[in-house]
């Protein structure tokens, strides 16, 4: 049903996009497009564009297409046609209005989740193509206000939420003190050179989810982990600059993160339950800097929990009783291959695990990732409408609790649950571990 819910998703005005677009002229647009296409992309993009036969197999892979009345313009190929397709057809001679539209398509109608690439007979990476569009929009200064502000925060503070340096350390000390009320000798060791593990998080944790740092400290202490957290910038592993197309700031962030780990002489970084940051550290950001792989090994919390449970370093007092289902975040499951380990963890913690369908690398996106939720309130309603398929998927499980081992997924799914009035709680895996683990007397 083309045009479905169009009244809720079109004609959205974003100050960043509108004001940015108002500054553009056609010559500038043409020059930037030429520069990006000539110097930053290569045969990869050309082959993708030339190879697509518009077979439409990518369409049913996309939650936007499925949720928006199967309107072809929301299919992955449709979104490429509406953005890069026009750019190529017009040889870069596109208008400011077109750039504004392309920015909205690339940043709010595609989560760069790469599900469609699995269904493309040629393996065309539509996410890469959308990121090229975002890069062009960044170079033209036409980016949604909220995520641009996040990129600015990254550039100043090296974290995504304007957390100042003293606020970060103070929060860690506050959480240590809180946790000492439960475990009097518990520590969050700061700047411990030579520790085995550096634990890194994303800025929402100190900003408004400090209990996650508390829980991590309990888990680390209970498991007897030799760990540390930095007292300097470099503690935040997140990276919205990767999604705005500001690759220079992305590289600066990743350098700061890995340099901090190297300075602390740790063997490994363990990161909290965040998906996009995982993509940034193991794939995109590290490679922009010239590292083929992360220069300091880094593992996602899911893998860390798996290792702890498998080694018996965390023991389960009593399994979680409520029925749970698991959302597979694109960056750690499709991108990071942790489907089996996440199921091992959930089954070790919970009595009643109900798979959602489709699942694992075929799971539907949360519609928050890829920087979409970070485009902020102007696009929230659109984000809800264009992921009805996710709501249907959640409802079909009948589970009482939804587990989401990714911050962006968590926030997006929390919105979906609220919008569609689904009777379901949402939790991180660490919430469950904290609840069911044996803790020191």
């Amino acid at each position, binding site marked *: 049903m083309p045009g479905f819910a169009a009244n809720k998703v079109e004609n959205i005005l974003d100050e960043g996009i509108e004001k940015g677009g108002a500054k553009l002229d056609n010559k500038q647009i043409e020059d930037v497009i030429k520069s990006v296409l000539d110097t930053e992309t290569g045969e990869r993009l050309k082959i993708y564009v030339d190879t697509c036969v518009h077979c439409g197999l990518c369409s049913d892979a996309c939650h936007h297409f499925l949720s928006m009345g199967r309107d072809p313009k929301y299919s992955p190929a449709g979104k490429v046609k509406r953005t890069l397709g026009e750019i190529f057809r017009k040889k870069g001679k596109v208008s400011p209005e077109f750039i504004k539209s392309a920015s909205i398509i690339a940043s709010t109608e595609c989560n760069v989740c790469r599900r469609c690439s699995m269904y493309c007979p040629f393996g065309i990476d539509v996410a890469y193509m959308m990121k090229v569009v975002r890069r062009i929009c960044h170079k033209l200064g036409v980016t949604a206000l909220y995520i641009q502000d996040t990129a600015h925060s990254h*550039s*100043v*503070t090296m974290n995504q939420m304007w957390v100042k340096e003293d606020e970060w350390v103070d929060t860690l*000390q506050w959480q240590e003190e809180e946790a000492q009320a439960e475990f*009097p000798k518990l520590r969050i060791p700061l700047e411990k050179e030579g520790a085995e593990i550096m634990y890194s998080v994303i800025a929402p944790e100190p900003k408004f989810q400090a209990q996650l740092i508390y829980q991590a400290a309990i888990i680390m202490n209970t498991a007897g982990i030799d760990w540390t957290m930095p*007292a300097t910038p470099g503690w935040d592993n997140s990276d919205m600059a990767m999604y705005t197309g500001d690759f220079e700031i992305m*590289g600066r962030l990743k350098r700061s993160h890995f340099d901090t780990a190297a300075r602390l002489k740790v*063997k490994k970084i363990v990161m909290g339950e965040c998906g996009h940051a995982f993509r940034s550290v193991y794939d995109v950001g590290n490679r922009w800097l010239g590292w083929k792989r992360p220069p300091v*090994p880094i593992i996602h919390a899911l893998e860390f929990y798996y290792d702890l449970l498998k080694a018996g370093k965390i023991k389960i007092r009593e399994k979680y009783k409520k029925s749970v289902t698991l959302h597979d975040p694109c960056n750690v499951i499709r991108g990071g291959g942790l489907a089996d380990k996440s199921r091992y963890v959930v089954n070790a913690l919970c009595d009643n695990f109900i798979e959602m369908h489709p699942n694992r690398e075929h799971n539907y996106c949360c519609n928050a990732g890829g920087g979409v939720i970070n485009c902020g309130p102007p696009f929230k309603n659109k984000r809800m409408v264009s992921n009805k398929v996710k709501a249907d998927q959640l409802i079909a499980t009948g589970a009482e609790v939804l587990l989401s081992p990714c911050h962006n997924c968590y926030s997006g799914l929390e919105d979906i649950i609220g919008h569609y009035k689904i009777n379901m709680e949402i939790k991180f895996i660490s919430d469950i571990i904290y609840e069911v683990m044996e803790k020191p007397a």
Partner: protein
Amino acid sequence: MCGISCWDWNIGKRLVADISSWEDKFNWIEELHASPDGERIAAIVNIDEAEFSVCVNGETWENIFDKIWFLRFSPDGRLTAIVSEDGEWTLAVDGIPWENRFDYVWNTLFNKSGTDIAVAIQQDAKYSMALNGVPWENSFDNMTSMTLSHDGTKTAASVQVLPHKEGEIFKFQEGIYTAAAGGIAWDKNFINVWNMSFSPDSNKLAAEVRSSLYDYTIAVNGKPWDQIFGCVWEPLFDPSGTSVTAPVKIGEKWTLAEDGKVLWDSKFVQLWRHKYSYDGTKIAAVVAPRFGKWTIAVNDKPWGITFEDFVCDPVFSPNNKKIAAIAKNSDKWVVAVDGKEWENNFDMVWDPVFSPDSEHLAVKVEKNGKYTIAIDDKLWGNECDAVWEPIFNQAGDSILIKTIENNKYYRYIIPVNEIV
């Protein structure tokens, strides 16, 4: 002060402190820190709820604090810690707090000789630095990239000089940040100001700046280079203080620039962490000649060997003739000198230390959960629970090694030829 020549360099092993005897006295003992001369071992200790002190060789500081963190010896052997009393923070030096108190204190910095100590401070939600306890006269809405000059006379940081609320992206893009030296802000604003360094005489300050979302360059005392680059990394003054060099990105490749002009002919996938020899005749930098391949380049010429993952700062020998760096291949760390890799590899290696005569190179290393020292690719036979980075005597024929073995802290002076 006579420095290391005054230390006890008599050959032998000496028990300085039995750490196990501390354990009954305190609820917990935090990380141990050894003084540069090895004569003292110290740790933050918890005495009771919200009661902390510092234990040095078994004796606690007279003062008790609500909270203590970041215990560090200065290079000249003073023991510093960030301490809190009644909700106020300051720095304590050898147990004596600075007179000035602040709402928060962090990021202790020492100059090379240790004569001067700087910290970042926050007071009433305004940010500045304090040098030897004296805060800047000006304070700012935000502050990052704090630094202290080589001679310890000047502090500097990137500071926010105009008000800004979250979400004001266009105001931010007009430039609300600059650098401040000694609290005096440059008169030109930028979008961002990052890593900075002082000239040897502390009169000039160079910093990475971003003048638009896309334009990067180096600014010296507030004046940007005429040339704009795709990205830049940390600038350095040459030892004479007459020119500034920095890694710059041109197109998709990196090279080294001097005062805005390209200095090196080679282009690299990456170039950073450049360092001058003491006499200023050589520049060494970490470079990636190809994607995923890392090495050291000296005066534009990369070493023949490359490493897979990481190469740390190059270190020049005192005679300027040798360069050492530690590097990582997969999960093993190695030491390389002048393009040749040691045969031994390790689970972790600390920064290389040349002897004053440049004849020997020593490193602290970790292997199989134990720590020791390696000199010139030869391992000291003692495997310890902890060691500190070694220090050569002035003649370069003896080495000071500080260890923890079975919860006892020892100070060793060993002839170098006993290891090599």
